[in-house]
């Protein structure tokens, strides 16, 4: 065997180097791909906050109140000593129903779902009532609406402690 052949790689060593190379390349590519994936999840979104203070219960008349619809997407509904925060997202496909005071109902313009003022669906394709958001009071007695927690009628959650406040 010549001197040169001893110092250079033999076939087996060459292939193990190749494997190391491929594993490194694969890991680097996978790492880069996961960084790109993470890049597409923004850390800050320029959207309204998920909770807000909605004033005192006495500010609201009985029935449906629309003052938080634009921006926060919430209807305040007060009836029989209870005040609730209702989601304004149609349970059919996610459009925003319109409050029709003359007919005393919510009507979705997309596919015609209708809801009573308390959020129970009664016409159109909506499969379930409007969701309600967590509602509570701060030490001053002001209403706090928290949209990160929802209460669903069909799960029997509307009588949960945080689903309404007594007024």
């Amino acid at each position, binding site marked *: 065997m010549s001197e040169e052949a001893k110092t250079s790689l033999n076939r087996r060593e060459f292939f193990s180097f190749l494997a190391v190379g491929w594993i490194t390349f694969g890991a680097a590519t996978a790492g880069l791909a996961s960084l790109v994936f993470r890049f*597409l*999840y*923004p850390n800050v*979104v*320029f*959207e309204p906050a998920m909770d807000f203070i909605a004033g005192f219960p006495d500010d609201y008349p009985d029935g449906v109140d629309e003052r938080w619809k634009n921006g926060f997407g919430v209807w305040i509904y007060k009836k029989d000593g209870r005040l609730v925060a209702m989601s304004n997202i149609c349970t059919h*496909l*996610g*459009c925003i129903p319109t409050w029709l005071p003359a007919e005393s109902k919510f009507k979705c*313009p*997309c596919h015609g779902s209708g809801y009573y003022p308390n959020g129970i669906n009664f016409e159109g394709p909506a499969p379930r009532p409007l969701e309600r958001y967590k509602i509570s009071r701060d030490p001053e007695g002001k209403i706090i609406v928290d949209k990160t927690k929802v209460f669903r009628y069909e799960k029997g959650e509307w009588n949960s402690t945080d689903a309404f406040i007594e007024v």
Partner: protein
Amino acid sequence: MSEGFAKKVADTQVWKAIFRHGPPNNARNRAAVVAGNVFLHLHPIKLKKSGVQLGYTWCMGGLTFFVFLSLTVTGVLLMFYYRPTAEYAFTDIIGLREHVPLGIMRELHRWGAHLMVITVWIHMFRVFMTGSYKPPREFNWGVGVILLVLTMLLSFTGYLLPWDQLAIWAITVGSNMAKATPFLGYGGPGAALAKIGDFVMVSDKNDVRFQLLGGRFVGEAALLRFYILHCVFIPLVVAVLIAVHFWRVRKDGGISAPL
């Protein structure tokens, strides 16, 4: 006289630098025309007679490609006037009709979009009816299915850009399907299982719908995302796959004839 002039032009160094072959008046030079051109070389050098029979292919694949090209041209032109922001998008679309020269440009793009969806479906129907999905063309059928889906996605992402009520609510409804993705969408099956104590792992602020829209609802971030997808990302992928598609048509035995 004109023949002498043509010969003179063909003898110049400029002409010879561009065209490496002689005039296409024999089989060898005609083959060289196709093989020596970067665009045409995807195309077979020789076609079977059935390949140019309109009754056989309906030319639907070719028409789809032609419409794609015209959509690229009109789309790039529209980009000179359209700004994908909540403040300007809607009025820019109105402006394209009302005061930009050639107010039909946006309609050409919209009609072309409808036409491409139609021709791509008819192309698929024809390929199915002539049995052209069978081996050795099965891989190209797969590429074609991906191109069909991408055509739909181009349609879907372009739908949001006018930024009117129809656009916003159509995309709201459409992107709510992403919410129902198993495990990855917060309304989908299995998402409720991904929970550690009270901590919900898949919620409306980290699921696939959030990634698609760049937010919890169809807002300005979604408009910008759909604009990038519509104008840059999906067309690039489509262009690459079209090249693969054409190349494989050639390599798998030409257009659709029995092998």
